[in-house]
C-alpha cells in the first residue's frame, strides 16, 4: 500500500510499504478514505518529539471502511467508522473511569519504559505518533490496523460525508474538552490562545457551552477571520499587548478562563520566547511556553486554565507564583476522545456544530509531503488539510504547472 513515512526533520515521503495484518484478536483493518494532517504532526515534522524511527507511518486523524476483523472485534466488514487518536483497551482502571487517553494497556510493554521514566507512569498508545506512545503505524496510509477495535471506532451514518465526521477523531473533541475544562459559568469570558483547528473548535464549543464572550488571539489573518466568523472577538498579538487588551476588555477583571491551544512551539518575538528558543537550541529546555505563561498571567484571580496545546518535556520560568497566589485551577491532558464521540456526533447530525468551515484544502494522499510543507510554511492559507486516498493525483504536467505558479 501507499503510506506517508517519516524520515527525519522536514523529511516525509510517500512510499510503498507492506499492507497491515490482523495481529491481535480485537484488531480490525481499515481501508482509509480520509485522513487529516494535525497541528501536532508538525511537532514530529519539526523533529521536536523524541522516539521517532525512520520509516514510521504518521497520521492519527483518519476514518474509513472496515475490511477485515479479528475474532474479537465487534465491528463488521463494510462498516464506515471514525477512529479516536488515542488507543484504549476499555478494561483498565483508567478506561473504566472514562480517562481513555490514560489507558494502561495500549502502549506495548517494550515501548512504555520511556514515558514511565519521563512522566512517572507509562502513557497510552497513539496512532502514528512516535515510539514514546507505542510506535503504532498511523492512518496517513491506504490501510491501517486498529487495535482494540471493539472499543474505539464509532460507526457513522452514511448520509454524513467524511468532512463532517472526520474531525471526531481528534480536533473536534479536543476543542470540546478544552472548553469543558474551563467549567464555563454564565457571564464568563474565555480567552483562547491559538486559532488553529483546536483553538477554533474550542471557540465554537465555549460559545455552545454558554460563554458570554470569547476572545481569540493569533497573528494569522485568515485564522483570526475564522474565529471572528464563529463569533469571537479577536486580538492580533502583533498589534496589541495581549495582557493589557484582555484586562481592558474585561473591565479590569481578566478573562474567567483561558485556553492555551498553542503548545510547545509558540511563535512571537517577546523576550521570554526568544530566551526559550535559545535555551531549546542548547537543550536546556524542550518546550517554549510563551502562550502558557501569558495565559496564566492574563487569567483573572480564581480563574481556570485549560491546556489542550501539546507539551512534551520541560519548560523554564513557569509563573508558579501567579498560579498559586491567584488561586488558579488547571486542567490539561490528551483528549479522552472515546468519551465525546457519540454526543458530538449527535450535535453534528442536528446541525449544531459546524465541522467543515476550517477545511482549506483537500489533496490526494500522494501529495502529502507537499501538503506537510504548506502546513508548516503557509499557515495563513492552509487552515486544515484533508488527504483523500482515492482522489486522483494531478497529472504530472499539471503538478509542474502548479509548482510554476507557486
Amino acid at each position, binding site marked *: 500500500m501507499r503510506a506517508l513515512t517519516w524520515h527525519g526533520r522536514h523529511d516525509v515521503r510517500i512510499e510503498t510499504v507492506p499492507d497491515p495484518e490482523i495481529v491481535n484478536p480485537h484488531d480490525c483493518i481499515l481501508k482509509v478514505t480520509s485522513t487529516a494532517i494535525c497541528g501536532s504532526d508538525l511537532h514530529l515534522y519539526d523533529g521536536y518529539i523524541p522516539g521517532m524511527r525512520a520509516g514510521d507511518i504518521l497520521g492519527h486523524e483518519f476514518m474509513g471502511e472496515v475490511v477485515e476483523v479479528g475474532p474479537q472485534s465487534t465491528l463488521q466488514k463494510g462498516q464506515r467508522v471514525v477512529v479516536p487518536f488515542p488507543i484504549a483497551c476499555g478494561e*483498565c482502571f483508567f478506561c473504566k473511569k472514562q480517562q481513555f487517553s490514560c489507558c494502561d494497556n495500549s502502549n506495548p510493554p517494550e515501548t512504555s519504559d520511556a514515558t514511565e521514566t519521563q512522566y512517572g507512569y507509562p502513557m497510552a498508545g497513539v496512532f502514528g505518533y512516535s515510539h514514546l506512545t507505542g510506535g503504532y503505524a498511523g492512518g496517513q496510509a491506504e490501510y491501517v490496523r486498529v487495535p482494540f477495535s471493539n472499543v474505539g471506532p464509532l460507526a457513522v451514518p452514511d448520509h454524513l460525508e467524511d468532512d463532517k465526521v472526520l474531525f471526531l477523531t481528534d480536533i473536534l473533541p479536543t476543542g470540546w474538552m478544552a472548553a469543558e475544562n474551563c467549567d464555563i459559568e454564565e457571564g464568563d469570558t474565555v480567552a483562547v490562545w491559538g486559532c488553529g483547528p483546536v483553538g477554533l473548535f474550542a471557540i465554537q464549543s465555549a460559545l455552545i457551552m454558554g460563554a458570554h464572550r470569547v476572545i481569540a488571539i493569533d497573528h494569522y489573518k485568515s485564522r483570526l477571520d475564522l474565529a471572528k466568523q464563529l463569533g469571537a472577538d479577536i486580538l492580533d498579538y502583533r498589534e496589541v499587548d495581549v495582557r493589557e487588551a484582555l484586562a481592558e476588555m474585561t473591565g479590569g477583571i481578566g478573562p474567567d478562563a483561558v485556553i492555551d491551544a498553542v503548545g510547545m512551539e509558540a511563535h512571537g518575538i517577546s523576550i521570554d520566547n526568544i530566551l526559550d528558543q535559545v535555551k531549546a537550541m542548547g537543550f536546556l529546555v524542550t518546550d517554549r511556553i510563551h502562550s502558557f505563561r501569558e495565559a496564566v498571567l492574563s487569567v483573572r484571580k480564581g480563574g481556570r486554565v485549560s491546556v489542550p496545546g501539546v507539551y512534551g518535556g520541560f519548560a523554564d520560568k513557569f509563573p508558579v507564583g501567579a498560579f498559586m497566589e491567584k488561586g488558579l485551577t488547571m486542567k490539561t491532558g490528551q483528549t479522552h476522545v472515546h468519551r465525546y464521540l457519540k454526543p458530538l456526533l449527535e450535535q453534528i447530525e442536528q446541525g449544531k456544530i459546524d465541522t467543515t468551515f476550517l477545511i482549506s484544502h483537500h489533496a490526494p494522499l500522494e501529495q502529502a509531503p507537499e501538503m506537510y510543507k504548506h502546513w508548516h510554511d503557509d499557515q495563513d492559507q492552509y487552515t486544515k488539510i484533508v488527504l483523500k486516498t482515492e482522489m486522483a493525483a494531478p497529472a504530472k504536467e499539471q503538478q509542474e504547472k502548479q509548482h510554476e505558479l507557486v
Partner: protein
Amino acid sequence: MADNQTLSKSSSKALLGAGLAVAAGTAAFLLARRSADVHDDGVDVSDALDHVFRRKTGRYEEGLVGRTVTIGKSRQEIYRAWRDFTRFPDFMENVEAVEDLGGRRSKWTIKAPLGASVELVTKITEDRPGEAIGWKSEPESDIQTEGRVEFFDIAPGRGTGVRLTLRYDPPAGLPGRVVAKLFQREPNVQARRDLRRFKMLMETGEIATNAGPSGRDEPVTESTT
C-alpha cells in the same frame, strides 16, 4: 539596532553560561546533601516495602527486586492464571519454556544475554490460593533465584494488587548485572515488563503490540521497539 542584537546575543550567551554553572552547582550541592541525608543507623521508619529502600539503609537488600501492578480481576482468577507455570512463556519475555516435572517442581528455560540460555529447576515453596505463590530454585540450577507473587485487595472496587518480588544471585557479580541490564535481561526491567504483559493478558486477553507496516525493511508482524 545592530548593537542591540549583539548585546542581546552576548547577554543570552552569558545567561546560558551562568545558568549552566548554577545548575551544576545546585546538582553537586543536592547530591552531597542527599548522601549526607542517608542514615545507616539501622532504624528505618518508612511504611514501605523492602524492595524500595535505598542502599545504605538497614532494610536494603542486594539482589531483591519488586514491582506491583493493579489488575481489574479477582484474586482467585489471577491466582489461577499464575499457578499454571507452563503459561509463563505467554507473558514472560525471557522464559522460553516451562516443563512441569510433577511434585511441585518445574524446569524453566530462560534466555540469557548474547543468545545463550540458562536452565533452572524450581520448586513451589508456598501455595495459598488467592493469596500468594512462592518458588525457589533447586541447587542443580544454573542460577539461583527465588520468587514470590502475592495477590491482595488494593482498595474497594479497584481490583487486585499483584506484587512480584524476586531474589537472585546476580550473574557474575556487578559486571554481569551491568551486561544483563544492557541487554535488558535485568530482573528489575524484566519484572516490570512481564507484569505489564500479565496485566494486559488478564484484563484484555491480548498483549499490545505495534507490529505493523513501516518504511523499514522488516516483517509486518514483528513489533518494532
